């Protein structure tokens, strides 16, 4: 069985980035300066992943103040609401208030924002780069919505396809932090894109009813159910809510060796809930698994 380690979503900021953003918040450093630092730190992060042997890593999103924020601020028709608890954690996000979904603003060039460090949305290194977006269903559930329904979902899908077009995305991580009942919405995402879908909670067959698409990977608690709907199933063996290193995880993976030729291993949540030093150690540990 071939194992690929996968890091996704917000990655903890270094001390240097934290201090720089703190100065930026107090108008002691410019948008340009802080934006350049985000680029440099992202490159260091990719290098760290490469050196450690991580096969798959998405953008560390150092300039995202929360998992929804830069996207919310880039869509005309969405404003920011109050600080809201992210799931059962002690971390908070600004709840998007969706009045309408009108259009997507500039996201792939430098742009100052009011309630978030400047864009671009991503800091890609090459054309095989793995992009990241929050799941559409969770985005809507985590927002205050004036009018929910198919029309809203269709508009969100259009926005996601616009993001894909603007960056010419070939590979995309979509993370649904909340439990969703059905994922067929992703049938409408451009078929040329390889999607790595990370889902939360229990998975069952109903989730995939009427699904036409085959994902590149679906990461879940149950690789057996999802394996029919993707090329490579993924499992969560690293705990993003505990500083303990999962030295015994390799044993857990062995139980799948007769059932799958390839498997992706990752964490149960993005690693931003850990101190940076521990996240780095987990990356180092995960990098060794493929070998």
């Amino acid at each position: 069985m071939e194992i690929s380690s996968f890091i996704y979503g917000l990655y903890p900021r270094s001390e240097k980035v934290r201090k720089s953003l703190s100065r930026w918040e107090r108008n002691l450093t410019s948008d340009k300066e802080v934006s350049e630092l985000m680029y440099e730190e992202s490159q260091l992060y990719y290098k760290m992943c490469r050196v450690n042997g991580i096969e798959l890593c998405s953008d560390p999103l150092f300039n995202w103040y929360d998992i929804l924020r830069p996207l919310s601020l880039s869509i005309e028709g969405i404003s920011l609401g109050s600080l809201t608890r992210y799931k059962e954690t002690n971390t908070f996000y600004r709840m998007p208030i969706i009045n309408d979904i009108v259009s997507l603003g500039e996201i792939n060039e430098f742009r100052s924002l009011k309630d978030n460090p400047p864009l671009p949305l991503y800091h890609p290194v090459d054309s095989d780069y793995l992009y990241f977006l929050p799941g559409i269903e969770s985005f809507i559930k985590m927002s205050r919505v004036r009018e929910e329904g198919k029309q809203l979902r269709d508009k969100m899908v259009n926005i996601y396809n616009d993001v894909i077009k603007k960056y010419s995305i070939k590979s995309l991580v979509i993370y649904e932090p909340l439990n969703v009942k059905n994922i067929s919405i992703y049938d409408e995402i451009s078929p040329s894109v390889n999607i790595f879908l990370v889902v939360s909670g229990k998975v069952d067959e109903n989730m995939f009813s009427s699904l036409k698409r085959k994902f590149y990977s679906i990461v879940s608690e149950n690789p057996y159910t999802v394996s029919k709907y993707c090329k490579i199933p993924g499992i969560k063996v690293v705990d993003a809510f505990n500083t303990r290193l999962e030295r015994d995880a390799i044993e857990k993976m062995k139980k799948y060796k007769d059932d799958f030729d390839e498997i992706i291993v990752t964490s149960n949540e993005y690693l931003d809930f850990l101190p940076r030093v521990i996240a780095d150690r987990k990356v180092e540990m995960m990098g060794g698994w493929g070998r």
Partner: protein
Amino acid sequence: MNLITQEIGSFRKPDYLSSRFKSLNSKEFLENAERATLETIDLFKKAGLDNIGIGGEMFRWEMYEHPVRKINGIEIYGPVRSFDNRFYNKGSVISEIERKESFHSDEIKFLKKNVKDREIKVPITGPYTLMDWSFNEHYRSRLDLALAFSKIINDEIRELKNIWGEGKLQIQIDEPAATTHPDEMDIVLESVNESISNIDGIETHLHVCYSTDYDLIFNIIPDLKIDVYNLEFANRDKINLGKDRPGYRDIKKFSQVNETMSRKRSLGVGVTDVHIDFVEPVDLIRERIEYSLKYLDPSLVRLNPDCGLRTRSREVGFQKLKNMVDAKNEIIKNL
């Protein structure tokens, strides 16, 4: 008849203390923290508060790291994000935990010596919140870790009570995390009760704020060994005048629970929002109090800000407290 006005806990530190809090040597720190405490108590007295808390928590940097730094078995690897670019030092429990020194004895000794004409109330971070805000690398379960914190807090309260000596000491268990995991209310109940068990001569308070579901707390009130519940309400209320106060509707449920018990519990009603600079006018606070009194006997009502006022400037904090006291004074004229 009086309606007791009280502080919840923290108040904005003066610049001379906050800007050098972690770099002062111990002698300088004590001098500055004591000076800041006296200045803050003076503000509270000017505002007219009956209970001055612990003088604004001038000895503490924040509610988690302060006790955790005084406990063996916890390693702090680095900060984790709270929101945006705000971080806090979240500890990892790596072995059996035990208290290595008192968290708050220096504060209480200072207050015992310097405050004679006001009641005090000591806020202590609760066992469930300490557990929930820590990484658990050692204990078998979240319950086991919460109970280990309970033992430590129980020891701390005993020490504070010994220092205080005769007379009732008010202890406020701060549990902002209490309702964040709805399926763990049994852990909240057991750990809070253990933290205050078998200690005579204390009045127990529980402070919970920004909960999405106070029913979770109300459901366990009959079994909790708590005398006073200090809760946040103003943040969820509107700021225009009117008899209906949507932010305070849960008070009816609290009173319904109270009616089922022979020993009544008191409610500390949050009447001013600590997250906004808008200083609620006296009329607005008065309406909030009047609404509360529709459901509770005045003897069971205390008045406080929603939470600690550390997020507001000292000027805004003072004005919010003063308006709260002025509103109370208008009401008690008619009681």
